[in-house]
């Protein structure tokens, strides 16, 4: 009994931190519709700034005053950083497709990671205990840290303050209006620019405060951003995007479940949050307290709504590109061949994501699940059962496709970010299975997955890859312009009208989801044999994000977008990685630049600049 009580208290304290970060994320999303990947970076900045500021101020002002002033100043500074991010970056790309800002925030994540490393150095930094809350109190015979009691009290206080802000001030009313229907609010003459900036600032302050308050609990470290952002997203989605009270309840739920999970299922702590999210979303498609928001009526350019059909010129360009790729081994060395093989495989991965994203209008944050499923299927078949490569290449898309259909049955009942987060939940569950259990080889992966002898050389494997990927791309293209693709697009653009004309929209989306999964699976299998080994990272969030970055960078409006995006992103990454220690900052900077210069993706923007190829598909 005492254990349960203490465990519940520990869960509450964890929930408080989660709530601070998640509420900021939820507020930002509610109004601006930005999926802010950089929210974890703001949290990390809050922690690092609090570490330095409190050290500095404690020396000047004495322990308690200096420490707490440091915390407050850190949160405020993060608010300023958020303002800068909004004014310099996000403001310039609100007109782009909704997902495009995600790409920008990803660039910010990379830059912040290296900036923090450069400023604060490589070692974890542990702050002293919080003045005034250094010890523990006895609760039912157990020692419980005072600082956690402070955090537990802080959760409801922040909730009340936010409630007051949103329900008792004019600003809050406007924010709620914008959360409900952004376009209508704008039409009524509300200055959206100012509203957006202030909302991003508030969200950033909350993230910064969450990070700052963490410093007495743990050493600030360079992985803080990644470790919090996914969990915060889970909380926001469980609670319902844009709902503060929902975020609060969800944080309580996640905090308590993880505290009691430690007692009941110590090996499953990683998956518990995602299981909860999956269950909640299957039962309540908009989270605990979320509501469907009004969808935008005028889709931006670059959102995949303006997909072009083939023109003779485009066809010629495609043939020329294929011919050039086919001739490549005559000029390029072995490493270049390996690199291009990799790009071709990843381009297929990106193309499958592009299909479901652009034609299907279904956002997936967990596309790596199918890629990884394909890779693991072929690797397990090859190493456990001795199935030759050809069998693996055949089985992988089937297995990945089947899995995608299974998961898709749940996912396609949802829309927008909820759908995206459910795909992420499934991908994370698969990842943790691969990472933690021994039958998949765990973190040590599966080695010795090399291609059959008949494609044993780099050149031969390159041609095999090129053949399979080009054929797959053509199939995806065909599907996009077949009645199936038109039905999918109809379901995306106007679900009601599509239903009225007799299209079973959910069924089409479900099948589209499976199709994309199958091709991602094929890409995964090709990748496994190309690399010779498979590790859990093929299922990881970064793999999914890489896919999104490649698709968005290329642009959603053209079928050739994923190829261009993959080539640019992968080449940039490998080349920058080879030449500088701060490759993440450079890569992030380049992404930010590309986002600003090509707000519709590289291909989309180029097409628009050149003015040609304006044929409606």
């Amino acid at each position, binding site marked *: 009994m005492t254990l349960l009580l203490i*465990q519940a208290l520990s869960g509450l304290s964890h929930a408080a931190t989660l709530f601070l970060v998640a509420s900021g994320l939820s507020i930002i999303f509610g109004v601006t519709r930005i999926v802010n990947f950089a929210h974890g970076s703001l949290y990390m900045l809050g922690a690092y700034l609090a570490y330095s500021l409190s050290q500095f101020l404690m020396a000047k002002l004495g322990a308690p005053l200096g420490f707490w002033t440091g915390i407050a100043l850190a949160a405020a500074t993060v608010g300023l950083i958020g303002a800068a991010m909004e004014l310099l970056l996000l403001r310039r790309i609100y007109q782009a497709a909704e997902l495009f800002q995600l790409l920008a925030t990803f660039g910010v994540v990379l830059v912040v990671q290296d900036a923090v490393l450069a400023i604060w150095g490589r*070692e974890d930094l542990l702050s002293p205990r919080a003045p005034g809350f250094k010890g523990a109190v006895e609760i039912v015979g157990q020692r419980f840290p005072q600082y956690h009691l402070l955090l537990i009290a802080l959760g409801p206080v922040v909730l009340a303050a936010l409630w007051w802000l949103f329900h008792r001030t004019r600003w809050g009313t406007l924010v709620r209006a914008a959360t409900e229907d952004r376009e209508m609010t704008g039409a009524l003459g509300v200055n959206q620019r100012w509203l957006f900036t202030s909302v991003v600032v508030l969200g950033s302050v909350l993230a910064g405060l969450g990070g700052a308050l963490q410093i007495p609990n743990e*050493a600030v470290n360079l992985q803080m951003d990644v470790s919090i952002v996914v969990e915060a997203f889970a909380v926001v989605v469980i609670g319902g995007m844009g709902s503060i009270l929902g975020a609060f309840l969800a944080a309580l739920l996640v905090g308590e479940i993880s505290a009691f999970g430690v007692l009941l299922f110590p090996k499953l702590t990683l998956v518990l949050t995602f299981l909860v999210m999956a269950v909640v979303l299957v039962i309540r498609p908009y989270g605990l307290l979320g509501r469907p928001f009004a969808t935008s009526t005028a889709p931006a350019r670059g959102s995949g709504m303006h997909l072009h059909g083939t023109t003779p010129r485009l066809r010629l360009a495609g043939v020329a590109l294929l011919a050039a790729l086919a001739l490549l081994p005559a000029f390029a060395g072995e490493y270049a061949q390996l690199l291009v093989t990799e790009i071709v495989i990843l381009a297929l991965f990106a193309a499958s994501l592009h299909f479901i994203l652009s034609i299907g209008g279904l956002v997936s944050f967990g596309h790596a699940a199918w890629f990884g499923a394909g890779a693991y299927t072929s690797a397990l078949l090859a190493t456990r059962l001795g199935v030759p490569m050809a069998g693996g290449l055949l089985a992988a898309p089937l297995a990945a496709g089947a899995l995608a259909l299974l998961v898709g049955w749940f996912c396609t009942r949802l829309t927008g970010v909820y759908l995206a987060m459910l795909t992420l939940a499934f991908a994370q569950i698969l990842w943790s299975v691969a990472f933690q259990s021994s039958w998949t080889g765990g*973190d040590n*992966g599966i080695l010795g997955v090399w291609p059959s002898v008949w494609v044993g050389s780099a050149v031969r494997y390159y041609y095999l890859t090129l053949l399979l990927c080009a054929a797959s791309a053509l199939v995806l293209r065909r599907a996009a312009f077949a009645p199936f693709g038109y039905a999918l697009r109809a379901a995306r653009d106007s679900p009601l009208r599509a239903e009225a004309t007799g299209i079973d929209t959910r069924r089409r989306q479900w099948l589209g989801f499976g199709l994309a999964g199958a091709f991602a699976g094929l890409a995964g299998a090709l990748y496994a044999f190309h690399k010779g080994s498979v*590790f859990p990272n093929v299922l990881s969030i970064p793999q999914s994000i890489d896919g999104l970055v490649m698709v968005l960078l290329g642009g959603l409006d053209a079928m050739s977008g994923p190829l261009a995006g993959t080539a640019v992103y992968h080449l940039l990454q490998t080349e920058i990685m080879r030449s500088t220690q701060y490759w993440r900052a450079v890569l992030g900077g380049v992404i930010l630049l590309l986002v600003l210069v090509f707000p519709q993706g590289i291909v989309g923007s180029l097409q628009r600049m050149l003015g040609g190829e304006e044929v409606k598909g």
Partner: protein
Amino acid sequence: MRMRSWAFVVGLLALPLAAADNKPIVIGEISSYSTVPAFTVPYRNGWQMAVEEINAAGGLLGGRKLEVISRDDGGKPDDATRHAQELISSQRADLLAGTFLSNVGLAVSDIALRNKVLFVAAEPLTDALVWDKGNRYTFRLRPSTYMQAAMLAEEAAKLPAKTWATVAPNYEYGQSAVANFKELLKARRPDVEFVAEQWPALGKLDAGATIQALAAAKPEAIFNVTFGADLTKFVREGNLRGLFEGRAVVSMLTGEPEYLDPLKDETPRGWIVTGYPWDQIKGASHQRFLQAYEKRYGETPRLGSVVGYTTFMAIADAIRKAGSTDTEKLIGTLRGLKVETVFGPVTFRALDQQSTLGAFVGRLDLKDGRGVMVEWRYADGKDYMPPDAVVRKRRPPEAMR
């Protein structure tokens, strides 16, 4: 005329020969510099110092300089394999070295096997690297998970504690550390019992809840495998909640400066750990290393610095002794090669190509607000290996050809 053309031909022949003589020996190096800089940057300092010393002494094989082409794998085995292939095929590396993460080490060892290139792994800990997934092209310097667990099991057996709890990150390293420790402790002490296990996800330790769950089992002693950010959280929260009071704690790697330094004044007194008491090792070769390192970098060495320095010194020894950079000759030389290191003599075992580099086993103490190791001793790696028959059974036969 005739003479001149002969001279010309001879000259042409001599040209590549002369060039070959001064051609640098290229080592392709890979590690996770951007993802775990706290460990890999001191490691890089270490090998850079070794390379500078080797080249300042005139290089190897009659004046050939050592050239290292270094790549960052970003913590991803996929990126590491691409770098490895680039280093082999484009940069014409004579051998590969380095890596920090276990899965990256394994991925690179697989590339080494496929391309028949030597790979000297520096830091990965996984037992699989030289045993279950071992191959004849892969050697490893740092004491493995098994070896370090064996050192701690020996100390743990001396404790009166009969009931134990374990806490380890839930992935291969944590799992095999706990499995090894349990097996080795039970072999020495059949009376001990393991009463609780906690498996926090790597980097996501829910400290309060985990500690309370451990305390609820009332173990007399705890075996800890968490490290890095998880460890700091675990220690502070454990101190606050009194988890370590009246309990023995035995902990993997915690005495390494990389993990110990961030604990500062929270350093838990009395923990039995493996580590590196850099400030107290008096041996002449370590003193020389310490001074050179401090002079070169203006900071004190971490364990990674020693590993980087030693790996590259060992490679240089092997090349010197083999008189060549030929892979087969190097493998032949490295098998059973004895090298002098800053920790004393070390042998690369012919049996499994694991070095006998050891670790320091001691207790943690708090001095002037920072953690130090006391009552330590050097545990020579050769004494903490399983019987040869066990190794032969685990290691693939092709690897022992």
